[in-house]
Each structure stands twice: as structure tokens, then as C-alpha cells.
């Protein structure tokens, strides 16, 4: 007991971390099982199907030719992997998988840490916890320990899934798994800092997603230009281990660990500095009366989601501008190519390389814009369970106004985000390809709008019909993303892919815009949204 007194001063702010950790583990078990299972399952699926699709060195070298352009490197990884496609299926696997799988891993850890820190604080759930004999920093510590455990388990699972890849060694598999662990830890640490800055869960998520997006762009730009830019990206470090290649090295993971340690230290310093429930920004007295515009539930919804809209606007514009810059260099790259190489790159058609690139990029920008729109839908549920909507629901507001206006806010967010991505792409793309390309690129982006609308409507319908399982919308997102991006690599039945609205969009500008599909998808989105409104009208509202 005497030593306990001495220790108390040092440890008091962390007291109870162990108890909280067990509690958090229990609370997040379904989240963890779903995400870990999903990531590991996907890794296993790809580790089986990729070697089947590319059984010999010849087929892999052909694929490498197709991929060795700045534009494609931007979306996969550094040239060090491409150079050894022929020698090792492992290198091809890592190159194809890492960038995107790591980005999704980042998403998982951002959601996990925000949920356990800022989101809990926002709903006063952790107020109950903090009144217990539990230290001021214990909840953050427990959240980070949980992330560490989850990251370790993820690494182990991924390692297991890739041990079966032909011609690879166990050490390589372990390193491959560890890249996931490192990414998980890094983004947990990044989110821990973000959670201290804003005072909403959505701000914390938004900031962390902005960092993720920035990392993604910097890594891609670094790979495309073969510059050192990837070194400022948390997503870059794991891929710079060149796992499965002869140049394989472990130390870039050390950078991730070092940066994470510094961020964790910063997060703990910030926790000590701020008041419970507050962000880093000091509270200023606000308006005594409301602006004239704030006169409906819809106006309130748009005000509440304004920050998310700005996050989407800036992120998507940046994404578009960056992809646009690569688009230009894709063209230059093509000119330096031999006739045969060019043919492989353009899928045998006479269309220019930037056209096939435009298809891929506009689709991906649709996926990204969806993330922000789905966050808006999630906000609607929080307004409800947090009890804030109760005052609105007791006012002369129809259900279509509240919570229905969140559908409108998500639609505006998703549409504006998608279009700004297209605008950025078209602006920079046209500067190198000529102004004829401007309209083409904008149209290529508009082409994907109805597919975006369908997914937003489906997320809204989940809110209307199965509000408790609204998080299924992320599963939906993961599904359309995997089908869209990895679909060609996966050996799956055709109908599985055809459920995704993105698969029904014509690959403009490679082929003509299918205006019938465009109209049908728009109608489908409208019908699903109607169903969502019916659900919203029919169900009980679930206030705390």
C-alpha cells in the first residue's frame, strides 16, 4: 500500500485503464469482428484469386506494362514493385493491395478511436465513466490500447491469410501483416489528436479523414512522380517497405511507430490541457438571437452539417486537382511509348490512355464523395439518439422535415462533392490535354452521379427502416468500392457485381454515355429515397 501512494501521483490520470479496456472491448466487439473479419477475409480472397488470374510470369509482366505509368502508379504503388512483377506474385499482390487496403484500415481505426473518445464525450456517456474512480486520461489510454490490440490482431490475421501465396517466405508474410498493424496504430494516433481538437465526433472524424485523404494523395503523387513525397504520408511508409521484393526493408515501419508515439504524446498533452467536453478552440459568446435564415428544421440541418459540407468541398476539390495533374502526365507518358505498349495500355482500343484513366478516377471520386455523404446520414441518427431532435419532433415539423432533411443534406453533400472532384479533374486535366477535354471530364464525372445517389438513398432507407443497424451503410459502401475497384481482379459471379449501381454506369469516355442507364439509376435512387421517407414516417423516433 505504501508504494501505491507514491505511484498514485504518476498514475492517477491513468487509473482504471484496464477496467475501461475490458469494457471497450465488450462494447466494440461487433465492430471489431466485422472490420477485422472483412479486412482479413478480403485479403484471403485476393491472395487466392490473384495468383489464379496471373499464374505465370508472362501474364504478370503484361499487367506490369499496363500499370507502369504515372497515372496507374498514383493509384497503386511505387515502381519498385512493378519491376519485379515477373519474379514474384507476392510483389504484384502487395502492389495491388496495399494502398487501398491500408486506406480502408485507416478508415477503420479512425471510426474506432472517434467512437470511443470524442463521440462518447459528446453524448455524456463518458461523463458517467469519468465520475468513477478512473483517471482523466484513462479513456484515451484505453481507446489507444484497444487500437493497439486490434492492430496487432489485424496484422496477425492478414499474415495468416497470405502465408499460402506461392513462392513467398514467412518473413515476408509477417512484414506484409505488420504494414497493416503499423497503419492501424498510426491512424489511431492521428485520430487521438483530432479528437482533442474539435468538440464533435463528426469534427474528429472529418479531420482524421482529411488527414487520410491527404496521406493518400501524397503517397499517390510520390509514386507517380517517383519523388520522396510519399515519405510525408502515413499510408506511404508501409508500402515503402517494398515487401515481397528483393529490396524489402523493415525500417520504414519504424517511422510509422515513431510518428505515432509522438502523436500519442501530443494527444495526452492536449487532454490534460482542455476541459471535459470542450475542444481546443475557446468558447466565445455567440449570438443572442438567431439569424433570419434559421427558421426551419431543414435550415438547421444544413447549418449543423455545414462543416461536413466544407470538408467534402475542400477534400474533393483537392482530390480532383491531384488526379487531374496526373492525367496530364499520363498523356506525356503515352507519347514516349512503343506501339505495342500503347496498345496494351489502351485496352486494345484506339482511345487515348487518359480516357480509361478518366473512367477509373471519376468512379473513385464517386466513392470518396460518398464517404462524406454517408457521414451526414450518420449525423441524423446521432441527432435522434442524442435526444436533440426531440424538441424538433415536438414542433410543427413533418417527419420529412426532420429527420428527412438529412437526406437532402446528404444529397447536396454527395452531389457537390462529386461534381467538385470532377471540376478539379477537368480544370487541371484540360490545362494539359486542351480545353476539349474539359467538357468530357466533367461529363465523365456527372455520369457517376446517379450511382452516388442510389447509395445515398439506400443509406437513408436503412435509417428509415432499420435505424439500429444504420451502420450497415458502411458495409454497403465497402461492397460498392470493392466491386468497383477490385472487381476485375476478383473471380466472382456476375450477379454479385451487378447489385452495385456503379456497375451499371457506362464507361464514358471509353464508351458512349448510356443515358437510359443514367435515367434508370436516377429513378431507382428516387424510389429508394421514397421508401426511406416511408420508413421514416412509419417508425418510432428513438430518443435517449
Amino acid at each position, binding site marked *: 500500500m505504501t508504494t501505491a501512494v507514491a505511484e498514485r501521483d504518476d498514475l492517477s490520470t491513468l487509473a482504471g485503464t484496464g477496467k475501461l479496456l475490458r469494457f471497450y472491448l465488450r462494447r466494440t466487439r461487433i465492430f471489431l469482428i466485422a472490420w477485422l473479419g472483412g479486412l482479413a477475409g478480403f485479403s484471403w480472397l485476393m491472395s487466392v484469386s490473384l495468383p489464379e488470374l496471373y499464374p505465370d510470369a508472362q501474364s504478370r509482366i503484361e499487367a506490369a506494362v499496363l500499370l507502369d505509368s504515372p497515372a496507374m502508379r498514383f493509384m497503386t504503388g511505387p515502381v519498385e514493385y512493378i519491376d519485379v512483377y515477373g519474379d514474384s506474385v507476392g510483389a504484384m499482390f502487395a502492389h495491388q493491395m496495399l494502398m487501398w487496403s491500408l486506406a480502408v484500415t485507416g478508415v477503420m481505426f479512425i471510426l474506432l478511436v472517434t467512437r470511443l473518445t470524442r463521440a462518447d464525450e459528446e453524448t455524456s456517456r463518458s461523463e458517467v465513466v469519468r465520475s468513477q474512480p478512473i483517471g482523466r486520461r484513462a479513456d484515451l489510454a484505453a481507446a489507444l490500447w484497444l487500437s493497439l490490440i486490434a492492430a496487432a490482431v489485424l496484422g496477425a490475421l492478414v499474415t495468416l491469410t497470405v502465408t499460402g501465396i506461392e513462392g513467398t517466405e514467412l518473413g515476408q508474410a509477417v512484414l506484409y501483416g505488420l504494414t497493416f498493424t503499423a497503419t492501424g496504430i498510426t491512424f489511431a494516433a492521428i485520430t487521438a489528436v483530432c479528437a482533442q481538437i474539435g468538440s464533435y465526433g463528426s469534427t474528429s472524424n472529418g479531420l482524421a479523414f482529411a488527414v487520410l485523404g491527404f496521406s493518400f494523395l501524397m503517397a499517390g503523387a510520390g509514386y507517380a512522380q517517383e519523388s520522396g513525397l510519399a515519405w510525408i504520408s502515413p499510408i506511404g511508409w508501409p508500402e515503402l517497405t517494398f515487401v515481397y521484393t528483393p529490396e524489402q526493408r523493415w525500417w520504414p515501419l519504424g517511422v510509422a511507430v515513431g510518428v505515432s508515439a509522438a502523436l500519442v504524446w501530443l494527444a495526452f498533452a492536449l487532454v490534460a490541457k482542455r476541459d471535459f467536453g470542450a475542444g481546443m478552440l475557446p468558447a466565445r459568446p*455567440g449570438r443572442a438571437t438567431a439569424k433570419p435564415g434559421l427558421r426551419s428544421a431543414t435550415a438547421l440541418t444544413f447549418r*449543423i452539417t455545414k462543416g461536413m459540407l466544407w470538408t467534402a468541398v475542400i477534400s474533393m476539390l483537392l482530390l480532383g486537382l491531384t488526379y487531374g495533374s496526373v492525367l496530364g502526365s499520363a498523356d506525356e507518358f503515352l507519347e514516349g511509348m512503343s506501339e505495342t505498349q500503347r496498345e496494351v495500355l489502351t485496352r486494345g482500343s484506339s482511345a487515348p490512355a487518359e480516357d480509361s484513366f478518366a473512367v477509373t478516377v471519376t468512379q473513385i471520386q464517386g466513392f470518396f464523395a460518398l464517404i462524406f455523404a454517408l457521414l451526414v446520414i450518420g449525423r441524423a441518427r446521432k441527432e435522434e439518439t442524442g435526444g436533440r431532435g426531440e424538441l424538433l419532433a415536438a*414542433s410543427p415539423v413533418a417527419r420529412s422535415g426532420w429527420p428527412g432533411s438529412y437526406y437532402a443534406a446528404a444529397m447536396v453533400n454527395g452531389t457537390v462533392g462529386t461534381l467538385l472532384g470532377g471540376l478539379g479533374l477537368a480544370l487541371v486535366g484540360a490545362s494539359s490535354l486542351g480545353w476539349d477535354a474539359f467538357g468530357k471530364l466533367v461529363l465523365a464525372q456527372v455520369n457517376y452521379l446517379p450511382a452516388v445517389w442510389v447509395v445515398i438513398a439506400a443509406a437513408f432507407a436503412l435509417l428509415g427502416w432499420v435505424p439500429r443497424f444504420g451502420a450497415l451503410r458502411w458495409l454497403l459502401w465497402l461492397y460498392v468500392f470493392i466491386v468497383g475497384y477490385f472487381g476485375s481482379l476478383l473471380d466472382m459471379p456476375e450477379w454479385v457485381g451487378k447489385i452495385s449501381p456503379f456497375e451499371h454506369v457506362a464507361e464514358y469516355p471509353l464508351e458512349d454515355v448510356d443515358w437510359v442507364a443514367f435515367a434508370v439509376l436516377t429513378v431507382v435512387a428516387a424510389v429508394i429515397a421514397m421508401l426511406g421517407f416511408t420508413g421514416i414516417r412509419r417508425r418510432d423516433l428513438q430518443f435517449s
Partner: protein
Amino acid sequence: MNAVIRTEGLVKRFGHVTALDRLDLEVTRGETHGFLGPNGAGKSTAIRVLLGMLRSDEGRAELFGGDPWKDAATLHKRLAYVPGDVALWPGLTGGETIDLLGRLRGGIDKRKRDELLERFDLDPRKKGRSYSKGNRQKVALVAAFAADVDLLLLDEPTSGLDPLMGAVFNECVKEASAAGRTVLLSSHIMSEVEALCERVSIIRKGVIVETGTLAEMRHFSRSRLRATLKNPVRGLEDNEGVHDLKTDGLDIECSVDTGALDDVLAQLAVAGVAALTCEPPSLEEIFLRFYGDELAASGVPNGEGAES
């Protein structure tokens, strides 16, 4: 149509839990109606059904003669609601919230709003996240009392308010009542209900077990009688209207049914009375009678006893 609120056989289930079990509640125009019951008795559920937030499983509910589920938005123009636990938007100030809620009802009386802010001593410039529980409650109260509506639905509105503000609240309810508004006040603070409400309904496990004016309830209840007599009295224990009789020399103490008071007083007068106190039952005692068995189950002795 004299009933502002009327429910008949209202049933609401959440999974296996029956929150409302054939609830019959009636609140007439212009009255201030107390809605009494402990936590979990179904008060908030009943109010949320009346507000069209929850859909009833069986039975009927009427609000101003309309269907609270189907016509929710229209009916809400005529009422204001204060929940027991007010959650505010962290980024909106109290003033903004009050204005928004007022405008949703078609405008707010600026003078009245400012007067109420003054009376409740509320700073409208603070952001929602920095208000304490009591101040969050005040934001909703100011918005409700400033609204030009026919009905106030108040669900444990004073939780978190200090006694001073409790007094301001009582005044505001009285003013609202004087202006002809109907008030449904759900509470478990007996003094508040006793001071404000003409009629009271007691809810237990989703059923109304008693409803009526306070006077009626007292009538069916027992008064507490204490006396010091000049001579011993006989035959008191034989009177069927006398309960829990305790005799200590010339001091007696008992509960007396209202109907038996005449007889008992006559008997005491014969013996000669040196001192006498007779108290009507407090609302708390009436209330506890309906919960006597629950108190007993949790080990609290209850002098009034379960219903005999």
C-alpha cells in the same frame, strides 16, 4: 370537444416490455393536470405517444380531437413541449435555439421572450454545449412559455432547476393557466403538483390507477388524527373507519376514513378533548398508497399501509 387530451385503452410495447398497458387519460380544456408516477411508470412514453413520436400498438389517443400520429405536424402548432432531459445543439446558442423553436411555430413574441429570459436569469449568448443541466432546461422552458399555444406538455420540467427557479416556474404555469392554456404537468415532485394542479392522474406500470381532483382524492383517503383526551375513550377500535389506532395513555393517534370523521369526533367529544390535530392526507400519502406494495417489496415500511 372539451377534452384536449384523451386516450382510451392505449397500449405501447417495446419488445417484451409493455410500457403502456391500456392507459385511459383525459385532460379537459383549461385545466392544469398533474401526471404523477415514479420513473419508468410510463409518463414519458404516454407523452411521446401524444406527441406522435411513438406509435401506439392498441387503443386510441386524441389530441385536440385529432390523431396525434397522423396529424402530428399540424397539431404541434397548438402545443409546446418541454422534455425532462433537454439536449441542445452544441453549436447553437440558447437564444438561437429559442428563436428557432419559436419560428417553427410561426413566430415568437420578442417582448415575452426577453421578459422570460430575464425572469429565468438565462444568458442567451452561451453555446448549447456550455449550459448546465438546469440551464438547458431553462432554454426549453423559455421557448415553451413564450409560445402562443393552447397546450403545454411538461415532462418533469423542473428537474435540475434550483428552488428559486422552481418558484419562477410555478408562477409561469399559473400565468399560463390564467391565460386559458391547458397544461399537462408530469412530475414526481408532489409539492409542485399540489401547488399547481387542479386534477391529478396517478400512473403505475402503464395504467392510470387514480384520477380526480385533489379534493376528491382526499375524500377517498384517510385523514391523520392525533388527540390528547381528558378521559379514556372506548369503542374507537370497533369503528370500521378507524385504522392503525395507537393509544398511549390519554394520547391517541389513528387514520380515519373521511366518511367516519363525524362519528369519531363525536366519540372523542364525549371523552373530552384537550388537544386535537387532524390533517388531510398529503398528495404524497395518497400517491404512496398506490405504491405501498412496491415500497414494501423494497423494504420500506409504510405507515399508511397497502390498500386494506
